[in-house]
């Protein structure tokens, strides 16, 4: 083994990389574009749900209720003309939630207030806008009302003044919208009746600094770079050089397979370091995410490179056609990207997918990078690194042994 050979191959690989526009784009620019897109989707300010509001009442009380809805900032409120037919409006405007303050709402509230102080005077009645789920929601609405009436039955017969919520039950925002409105109604009740709050929820941050989606996503994007550079890069170089005859030429020189593999490993690591640095800088500038790379981060990037380069070598050994090899590499990398929690936290996935994720080295790389860069949990980062390292050594050794330049090794 000669260092001069490793060095010239390493330097040449870097020159070739920086002179190639497509590799430059896919490896350096693409992850950043992806990060900006996902960042824009998931953390573009507070999440607001669209809510159409129709006030058929016109009293001061109904106006203050709508004010309360507005002041939560949970909704982007569109006021709808009182004369409009609600169902038609929902259909033609394709909205998932509409709040209707019925005529006489103000009067009902006044009446209930007069009847007794600490009783619920306002309730939310949920009307589904899709027929398929009518029953389930009718029950829900009944239970909401029955709880109210139970409380009231001890005293006098008070029917709560109800606002009506029409929601599309197939929409994922439906439970959130009805939940938020119910809390507004409850808050409204306590305010009107002047009751003391007995049970409350205090929000506390789990992390010392605010942990947003983008904090989760930045290490994931770095993991993505390690995966794609390692697998796709290795498969690309190996099949391309094999098919265009460069490997055959190299095989006639004293350059050893191990020298070539070591050089390519170093090269991939440097490319990944450049890519990760760019991601960290852009994340800081655009999202003010402080992802602090430390020694453990560098180790993780290195063992990740070993692991995915190994997987790349194994694919390149068995699928020799250039197009087929790239397809095979994509077939390995893309499902792994999604299943290993790059874009979506694993905890939000079904159990069986979480089980699958436990067998993917990228899962541990992602965990490790988050531990090291965002959470500052060095012990956990090292633990995850060890798992990637073990998988990496296995894949790398197999890959190195079976990579064939010459017949019979």
């Amino acid at each position, binding site marked *: 083994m000669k260092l*001069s*050979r490793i*060095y*010239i*191959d390493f330097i*040449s690989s870097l*020159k*070739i990389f920086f*002179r*190639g526009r497509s590799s430059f784009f896919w490896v350096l620019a693409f992850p950043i574009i992806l990060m900006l897109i996902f960042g824009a989707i998931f953390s573009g300010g507070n999440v607001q749900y669209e809510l159409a509001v129709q006030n058929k009442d016109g009293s001061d009380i109904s106006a203050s209720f709508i004010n309360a809805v507005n002041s939560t900032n949970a909704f982007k409120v569109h006021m709808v003309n009182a004369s409009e037919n609600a169902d038609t409006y929902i259909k033609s405007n394709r909205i998932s939630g509409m709040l209707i303050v019925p005529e006489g709402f103000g009067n009902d509230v006044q009446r209930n207030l007069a009847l007794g102080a600490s009783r619920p005077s306002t309730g939310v009645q949920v009307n589904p806008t899709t027929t398929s789920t009518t029953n389930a929601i009718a029950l829900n609405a009944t239970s909401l009302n029955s709880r109210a009436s139970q409380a009231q039955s001890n005293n006098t017969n008070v029917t709560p003044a109800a606002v009506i919520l029409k929601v599309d039950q197939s929409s994922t925002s439906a439970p959130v919208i009805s939940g938020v409105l119910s809390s507004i109604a409850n808050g409204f009740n306590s305010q009107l009746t002047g009751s003391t709050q007995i049970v409350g929820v205090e929000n506390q941050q789990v992390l010392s600094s605010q942990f947003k989606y983008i904090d989760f996503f930045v290490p994931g994007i770095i993991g993505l770079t390690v995966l794609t550079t390692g697998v796709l890069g290795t498969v690309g170089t190996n099949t391309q050089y094999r098919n*265009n*005859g*460069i490997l*055959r*030429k190299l*095989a*006639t*020189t*004293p*350059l050893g397979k191990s020298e070539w593999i070591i050089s390519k490993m170093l090269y991939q690591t440097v490319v990944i370091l450049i890519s990760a640095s760019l991601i960290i800088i852009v994340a800081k500038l655009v999202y003010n995410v402080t992802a602090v790379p430390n020694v453990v981060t560098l180790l993780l990037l290195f063992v990740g490179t070993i692991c995915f380069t190994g997987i790349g070598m194994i694919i390149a050994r068995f699928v020799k056609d250039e197009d087929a090899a790239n397809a095979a590499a994509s077939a390995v990398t893309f499902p792994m990207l999604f299943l290993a929690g790059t874009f979506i936290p694993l905890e939000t996935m079904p159990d069986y997918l979480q089980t699958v994720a436990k067998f993917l080295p990228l899962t541990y790389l992602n965990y490790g990078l988050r531990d090291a860069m965002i959470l500052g949990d060095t012990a956990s980062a090292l633990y995850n690194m060890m798992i990637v390292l073990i998988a990496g050594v296995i894949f790398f050794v197999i890959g190195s042994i079976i990579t064939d330049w*010459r*017949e*019979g090794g």
Partner: protein
Amino acid sequence: MKNEAEWAIKIEGLAKEYGNIKAVDQISFKIPFGVIFAFLGPNGAGKTTTVEILECLRKPSAGTAYVLGLDITKDQNEIRKRIGVLPQEFNTFDRLTVRENLKYYATMYDNPRDIDELISSVDLVDKVNTMYKNLSGGLKQRLGVAIALVNDPQVVFLDEPTEGLDPKARRDVWEVIKKLRDEGKTVFLTTHYMEEAETLADVVAIILDGKIRAMDTTTNLIKNHGYLAKLVIHGGNTGAFEALSVQWAGTELNNSDVIVPLRDKRDLAKIVELLDQRQIAFDELEMKKPSLEDVFLDLTATDREGVS
């Protein structure tokens, strides 16, 4: 470098089988030092397989082979240091310049040649900073030859060095190859171009279906082929054919031309006299020197007869 080997390349009973297919079938030959050896044969005859065995890229199924006296199954590392290779369909790094590519391969060896000297020897001085991908086919091959020479090898393997080149580029590559003989290199050239073998080679071996069918110096191969020259009687027609085919075996009628192989120095005079006597009309006479192509075509023709 000191070398006690008697032959630059020595092959005995070499065979390579892929399943039932005998790509190389028990071939044996020896190549002396300092010659250009042409390994001539059609595509698929076993040329590249043989060369790749000698370059230690493939393992033989049977037989032995020595390059510079070194055993190809045992001394691969030593062989790789001492040979230069221009593989078939040579390619190198697209986005490296001529100089960077040469530097890359020079670094692979312990005592490489001076890069600038090599660049000027293949006439690429103007292109030294041009990326490989921007070179024309002929210039790419010339860089390939320069790379093959970067370790100052004793034996140079050139596998189809002018494949796909235009006639001008082909001749330029030939000039580069001719220089190698002047430098005392042994050149192992595989080609399916007769003209290339005839122009360059001192020794030619013809391989067909994995077997060596003929091997000798180029001059001898042509001389011993059986006739001195061919006389073409343009516009001789059937009259000339009927008059001559009795006495001169192998006479052919090709459209209106009659082609007579001449085996004796006096044949020409006899034919002219006969044509004159019988007042056989013709347009003109042409003498054709036999070429390697004739040798090759005769061999392949014999093969086809054997098969049918």
